[in-house]
């Protein structure tokens, strides 16, 4: 099986972007990450034939580069809120404000942004990209059990927030 950049790497661009965006929460940084990922993957093309899954390989590099970016962003005292997309700018963190928005998709996005990186990356890879626990474990370099724990915590946080929001809506 001969792999090529155009058929095996380039088509992954948007999946890589989505993961990078989930981690960095900044569109411009996410696009940079995808670019850097692809060049890094290209520079390691002598390893391609030994790789079982090109997708997992690329996602792993993407995540690591995203984490590097995130660390640098934090070091520049850029808070997590800064540099976010306009649609994420409503950061009403108390449930009453959220209820007034009455837009749970925004709430979900906001909730996820506030989760620790491992939880939101696991959730991204499972709920949005539809990856198996095994694949996610491989990409994140953690055990399958840890993947499940991260997903469990993320989903519980969201469920709990919905419960609170509903409670406020009823009063």
């Amino acid at each position, binding site marked *: 099986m001969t792999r090529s950049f155009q058929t095996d790497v380039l088509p992954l*661009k948007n999946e890589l972007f989505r993961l990078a965006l989930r981690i960095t929460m900044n569109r411009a940084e996410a696009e940079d990450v995808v670019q850097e990922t692809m060049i890094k993957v290209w520079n390691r093309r002598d390893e391609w034939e030994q790789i079982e899954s090109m997708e997992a390989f690329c996602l792993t590099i993407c995540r690591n580069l995203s984490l590097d970016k995130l660390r640098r962003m934090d070091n520049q005292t850029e808070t997590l809120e800064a540099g976010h997309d306009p649609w994420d700018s409503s950061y009403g963190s108390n449930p009453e404000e959220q209820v007034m928005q009455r837009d749970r*998709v925004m709430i979900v996005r906001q909730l996820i942004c506030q989760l620790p990186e491992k939880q939101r990356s696991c959730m991204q890879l499972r*709920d949005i990209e539809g990856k198996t626990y095994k694949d996610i474990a491989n990409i994140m370099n953690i055990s399958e059990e840890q993947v499940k724990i991260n997903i469990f915590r993320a989903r519980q946080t969201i469920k709990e927030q919905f419960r609170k*929001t509903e409670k406020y809506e009823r009063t």
Partner: protein
Amino acid sequence: MDYKYIEQLLERYFAVETTLEEEEILRAFFSQKEIPAGMEKYRDLFAFQLTERQEAPLGDDFDRRILSMVADVQPVKAREISLSQRLMPLFKAAAVVAIFLTLGQAAQTPWDASWNNQGTEYVVGYQQQVDTINVTPIQAENISDIPVDSVKVIPESLPKD
């Protein structure tokens, strides 16, 4: 509509016990218009997942940029073509020419034992310049695409034994 099944799936979803297929079922269910009141609050969680999946902002511009960067970093590796692949068109052309020459030769040859002995003389005869009259009509037509007046090109004589 059996909401019991969906309720069970939801419970398992939050316990991280659902399969990928079951998670797809939940997303499909929650993209419907009519959702029972008790489950309404989960609608946007699953709608969000479907929306996010469609996030695909990197288009052709991105492709062009990356491909040019990759080309700068290293020369683009040319697709390897084997020697036999390279020569195949030539082989084919040579085969066609050989067929025509053979047919032409066969048409000229008296069908008796004597043609065996003509050997090199015969071959030499057919290697003559194309613009001489010692060329059969078939050969002459094959040399150029112009139809040839047979009378004018029939050789005066064939090599004799």
